[in-house]
């Protein structure tokens, strides 16, 4: 489904900075992978490269056998809105639109039928618990609600690969549990591949596999196995092994 081979990213500047170094990573269809690592380790950079928002300096990205970085601009735009779904760290909602309009935006651009759009949007709204705010404007809703709207928008066109940058960063533990179960159910039902960057070990424990990055390099990875509680414990252990106290992570974001 997704294959990174020897991906490196160098930020040019006064001092060139190597943010990613020879990353090899493969994600199966329908797999749910979490990426963790200390602040500044290159997680957002990695996600940006996969989501085609940024170019790798060297190395190859393959999604479904195609290299999206080699597409023309127009084909890339179509590719993004048909194959990929994004949940941005800062939501990226449009403040001139209502919640519902924000959610259907990717479909309208593709010229879908109104009835279809309405149905899909309301189905998602029910499952995300945002039906009551569908006609509100984005400045009238809370951060957690905005997060869920962003998730709904990322999923409305049933993408093959869903990319999420800290989807639970703004939520309390109850809300983040809801969002995570939501993601898991999409992952299971629609067979959507999921790649999620997170600082939250709780959220990470919903995934099938956690990949740890440090200083732009793959550090290690652990698989979930049968027991979620044990998995959670292993994540905590790995985090403290990598860089001191696990709690350090939860407070830092891009």
């Amino acid at each position: 489904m997704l294959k990174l081979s020897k991906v490196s990213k160098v930020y040019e500047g006064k001092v060139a900075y190597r943010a990613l170094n020879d990353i090899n990573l493969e994600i199966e269809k329908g797999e749910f992978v979490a990426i963790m690592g200390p602040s500044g380790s290159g997680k957002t950079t990695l996600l940006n490269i996969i989501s085609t928002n940024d170019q790798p300096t060297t190395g190859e990205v393959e999604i479904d056998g195609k290299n999206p970085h080699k597409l023309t601009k127009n084909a890339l735009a179509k590719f993004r809105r048909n194959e990929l779904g994004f949940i941005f760290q800062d939501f990226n909602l449009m403040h001139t639109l209502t919640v519902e309009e924000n959610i259907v935006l990717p479909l309208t651009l593709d010229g879908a039928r109104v009835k279809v759009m309405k149905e899909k949007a309301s189905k998602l709204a029910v499952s995300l618990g945002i039906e009551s705010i569908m006609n509100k404007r984005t400045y009238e809703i809370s951060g957690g609600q905005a997060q869920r709207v962003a998730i709904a928008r990322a999923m409305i066109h049933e993408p093959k690969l869903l990319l999420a940058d800290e989807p639970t960063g703004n939520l309390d533990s109850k809300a983040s549990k809801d969002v995570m179960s939501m993601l898991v159910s999409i992952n299971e039902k629609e067979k959507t591949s999921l790649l999620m960057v997170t600082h939250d070990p709780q959220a990470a424990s919903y995934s099938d596999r956690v990949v740890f990055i440090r200083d732009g390099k793959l550090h290690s990875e652990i698989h979930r196995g049968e027991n979620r509680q044990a998995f959670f414990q292993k994540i905590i252990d790995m985090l403290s092994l990598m860089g001191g106290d696990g709690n350090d992570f939860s407070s830092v974001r891009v």
Partner: protein
Amino acid sequence: MTFRQFAFNNVLRNKRLYIAYFLSSMFTVMVFFTFAIFAFHPAFSGGSVNENALFGMAVAGGIIYVFSFFFVLYSMSSFLQSRKKEFGLLIMLGASNKQIRWMVFLENIFIGFLATVAGILAGLVFAKAILLVAENVLIISESLYFYFPTLAIVITLVSFIFLFFCISVFVSVILRTNKLVNLIKGDKQSKGEPKASVILSILAALLLIVGYGTALYVKGVNVVVAMVPVIIVVTLGTYLLFTQLSVYVIRQLKRNKSIFWRKTNMLLFSDLSFRMKDNARTFFMVAIISTVAFSAIGTLYGFQSYLTKGIKEVNPYTVTYSPWGGDSEEIIEQDINEINAILQEENIDAKMESIELTYFDTHEKDRNVLIVRASDYNRFAALGGETELSLKENEAIVVEQSGAVVAGGPKASEVLMKSSVQLDNGQEVQPSHVVESEVLSEINGYYVVHDKVYENLGRPVRSEINVAWKANEGQHDQVLDAGKKLNEQLEYKAFSVDYSLFEINKAFGPILFIGLFIGIVFFVSAGSFLYFRLFTDLEGEKQKFRSIAKIGLTQAELKKVVNRQIALLFFSPIVVALIHGAVALTALSHMFDYNLIEEASIVLGSFALIQIIYFLLVRFFYVKQVKRSIM
């Protein structure tokens, strides 16, 4: 770092944000200054330009100054609007209201000063450009040479420093510091989609219909009477059109999901309605300002053409000569020789025809009628390039000048058609039909009869000699020189069309120039309003397109949205203004009963063309900017 330094640096380091505001202020100064250059031009103060023109200039100067005030105020308020968030942050960090007002005050003084200086410099260039245009388009005898406008500089500097000072005080006082939370949310906070009331929307349509209807219906002097009420009604209607009707339409569109949710429409309309309040205001101002520009130029141009075209139409010959009533034959002969001599001096190839116009008695007493031999008529018709008449024996035709205006009373042709040509032998010839031509000049019309009939007319009561010359094509300059001499030596007796036209244009030149200048200034201002509107929102737009690009927006779709957005902004007020202008010029043509279609089309057409070019240019840069930001 003192707070003053902070304010200073804030401007310098935030250049991009301030540039739109700076440019629009600079532009205003430039316009005023350019105007001042002309107003204080030595050529105008020399006294040779008529009083009315000077008064017109003073009024225009005042309008421009008042207009500048509002324009700067408007620019300033949208500039401050876009900085709400910054103020919010400052307050959160502990700045007092007083400090913020002080900062805004200092900034404005600073920008105002720079804008005034830069505007004067730009004005010097602009003035030079306008002079070039004026020289080539208009006949202005006092050549408007370029001079160093000390007085204009001083006046502009003083006026605008004063204006910026007033505005700075004004704004910093009224800058009510809203609730902090509103400020912080800044641009994200809806400025509120304005409510549209159905009643007011209908009223808008009604007002426009009534205004237009009246303007198009009234004729003659009534146009003047109706003018002010119509202007008020239409202005009000325009205001409601943009603030109510358009909002109403967009709301309906938004409600209709099959339209609103179609492809990129959502991006387009959501933005439109979001900005409707600002847009409505801009649209209204631009529409009205442009209407003023169109009407001013259209009126002056139409008026000039009314004067000159009328003369040209009724005078098909290059030179005509008609002696005074009491002139003896010798004097007439002498005059004709003199005219021929002058024409020869100037090397003009001209054909000459002369005629004895004979007047006869009619049934009614005190009324004579001119009766012309067909062969005489045809000689003149051939000379003037008009159609010749072929008459049957015993036929008479009534000829009337199409351009002749008879105030009140029946038309000349009606009188003549009712009457008849009396022959010596007591018989009468009934005129068969009416022909319009300018072959001979007689305001009351005349009969043309077959040569044989003419023989039987008897003795005329009076007769006068008329001589006409027609120069060959392409001798315009010589004809003008000859006309000047003729005018000096044979005043009132010899008439040269080209020279009279030249005189009219000369007298009209400065007025037309001022009109043209004011029109251009207003039109350019309207353009800068639009530009300013567009570029204050640019940052927000870039942000928006950056977000959507991440979801996936093709170049073609981006272009389409931006294209429509700018097109709507640029053309909806202009189209309204063009319609207003067309109606105004139609009313004007009713007033003079003179067909202005050609003039109106030229004026309105050129403005439309300029606007299209302007649109293409702005769109090019705008799209480039937006594209660059999402790369």
